[in-house]
């Protein structure tokens, strides 16, 4: 268990102040916030790599606020891997083990365990410069896990990867977390990533923590304009994905089934951009696979555009221009149809 109490960190231009949160043993904790919110510095402060102004950090009942990073047992994985370029993959992974002066047999055993865990036996003799992004991040993970840290800190570990590798590493992270039951804190600016991986999410912005809760709580009951903007910019649902007809998959959400294009199956999440939903007062004839019938339950005026909340249930957030809004004569409690393509539904 790790507790951060009233932490204040200097970021040069501004201050990260009164950061308080606690992460339970084995929890996957997400710190979600926009770029430049000081997320990396917050992680580095927890690891002892960045000086803090005031506050305390406790790990498993012991205060570690002023402990040197090498004594904390907190591992770090950065967005862009930060592998030691002069060492081979194998030397990178065993770096921490060699420092501990472990006997060769034990080092070999740990190395084999990590290589098997991440499935990277073919990379061992390579130099970091020759690896792909996904491979590099696996090596960085293996290196961080080698010293069996009490807490693993992940700084946007998926952000530098191309989409394929992203999915792969996200899957690895979830698998490794389930298998090792390690306490993990990950920072990200990506709401989908947060929903897919995190048990709980802390939304950070304007120099402080804005809200802490499950993804459902953050999404359904944002406590501020800031959180709402950050979380509600997308429709996010969870449900079971199974085979549909004609090569499409379907996901059950609320009372409806939505068609999506994906190879994934099982209990997953779906996201849909508000601007990808077409609003009409009559059912549309089009090639789009999804056409849902609902009632406008809320209207948010944003000037030239408006955000409509359409309840089916569940609730969908849709974006319309002022022009079409007025042309269709939309009002609250009016019945509308929502049309969107199966390919606009992102399953993750």
């Amino acid at each position, binding site marked *: 268990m790790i507790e951060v109490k009233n932490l204040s960190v200097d970021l040069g231009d501004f201050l990260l102040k009164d950061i308080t949160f606690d992460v339970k043993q084995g929890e996957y904790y997400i710190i979600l916030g926009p770029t430049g919110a000081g997320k990396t510095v917050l992680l*580095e402060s927890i690891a002892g790599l960045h000086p803090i102004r005031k506050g305390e950090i406790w790990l498993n009942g012991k205060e570690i606020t002023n402990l*040197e990073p090498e004594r904390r047992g907190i591992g770090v994985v950065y967005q862009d891997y930060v592998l030691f370029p002069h060492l081979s993959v194998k030397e990178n992974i065993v*770096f921490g083990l060699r420092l501990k002066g472990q006997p060769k047999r034990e080092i070999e055993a740990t190395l084999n365990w990590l290589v098997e865990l991440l499935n990277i036996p073919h990379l061992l003799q390579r130099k970091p410069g020759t690896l792909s992004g996904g491979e590099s991040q696996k090596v960085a993970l293996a290196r961080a896990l080698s010293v069996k840290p009490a807490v693993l800190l992940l700084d946007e570990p998926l952000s530098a990867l191309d989409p394929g590798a992203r999915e792969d590493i996200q899957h690895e992270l979830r698998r490794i977390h389930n298998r090792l039951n390690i306490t993990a804190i990950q920072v990200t600016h990506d709401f989908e990533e947060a929903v897919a991986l995190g048990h709980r999410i802390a939304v950070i912005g304007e120099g402080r923590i804005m809200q802490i809760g499950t993804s459902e709580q953050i999404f359904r009951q944002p406590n501020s304009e800031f959180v709402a903007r950050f979380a509600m910019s997308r429709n996010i649902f969870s449900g079971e994905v199974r085979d549909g007809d004609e090569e499409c998959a379907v996901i059950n959400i609320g009372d409806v089934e939505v068609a999506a294009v994906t190879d994934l199956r099982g209990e997953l999440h779906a996201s849909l951009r508000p601007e990808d939903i077409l609003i009409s007062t009559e059912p549309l004839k089009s090639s789009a696979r999804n056409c849902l019938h609902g009632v406008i339950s809320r209207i948010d005026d944003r000037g030239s555009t408006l955000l409509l909340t359409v309840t089916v249930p569940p609730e969908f957030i849709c974006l319309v221009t002022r022009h079409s809004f007025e042309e269709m004569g939309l009002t609250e409690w009016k019945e509308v149809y929502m049309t969107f393509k199966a390919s606009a539904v992102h399953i993750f």
Partner: protein
Amino acid sequence: MSHGVLSVRRVSANKMTITFALLALVIMLFVFLPLAKTIFSSSPTMLFDSLLDDKVRGAIWLSLYTALLATVVGAIFGIPLAYILARFDFPGKRTVEGLIDVPIVIPHTAAGIALLFVFGRNFLAGKAFNLIGINFVDSVAGIVIAMLFVSIPFLIDSAKEGFKAVDVRLEKVSRTLGASPWQTFFRISLPLAWRSILAGNVMMWARGISEFGAVMILAYHPMVASILVADRFEEYGLDYARPVAALLILVCLVIFIGLRAFAYRGEKT
């Protein structure tokens, strides 16, 4: 239309390239001609004869090892300073960086005088060192500190750039993996900055060997090679100075080229 603009540009770029190449040729000749002429106008027998001269051999050897000593001392004290300058921000950092480079811009005879005022027999550091039997006037120790003073900026600047190029997060990761600051320095920072540090050491050594002004003020004797060249020229004239000069140039070239090849081995250009 846009194609026309492009082709005009290309022509003028070509003219520029030719002009630059011609100007470059002039400065290259300016550097190479005197060196080549000095080396080739002394016949091999003359070079061999001066190599047999104990005084010449002794002076070249003295130059090589006093400059090496200065480099070793410079590395021990200069590399930590370079690391601090690369990694930390503190008030007055700019001033420190400026001061480090002062020896490059002042006349080296003036540097020698300045050194004499601290390390001379009747001055502060001179007296202190005298107690442990080290005397800086007309001695090997004097040559070493003269070379150290005028050539240390090359080492510090080069090492500083080397450390700056090492991502500080590599050091951070090393710490989280259990490495102490010392272990991190010797296993991560130093190996990764090694090329720049070596280049700085080579530059410092070469600069030390070629030093004349400051050494002349502090320690005319024992004679290092650069002073011997000047001494022969003053006493006997050009013909006597030339073989010694040629030898000194040759020795420096061999060392310099050799070390560069070693430092950049395996690197694609």
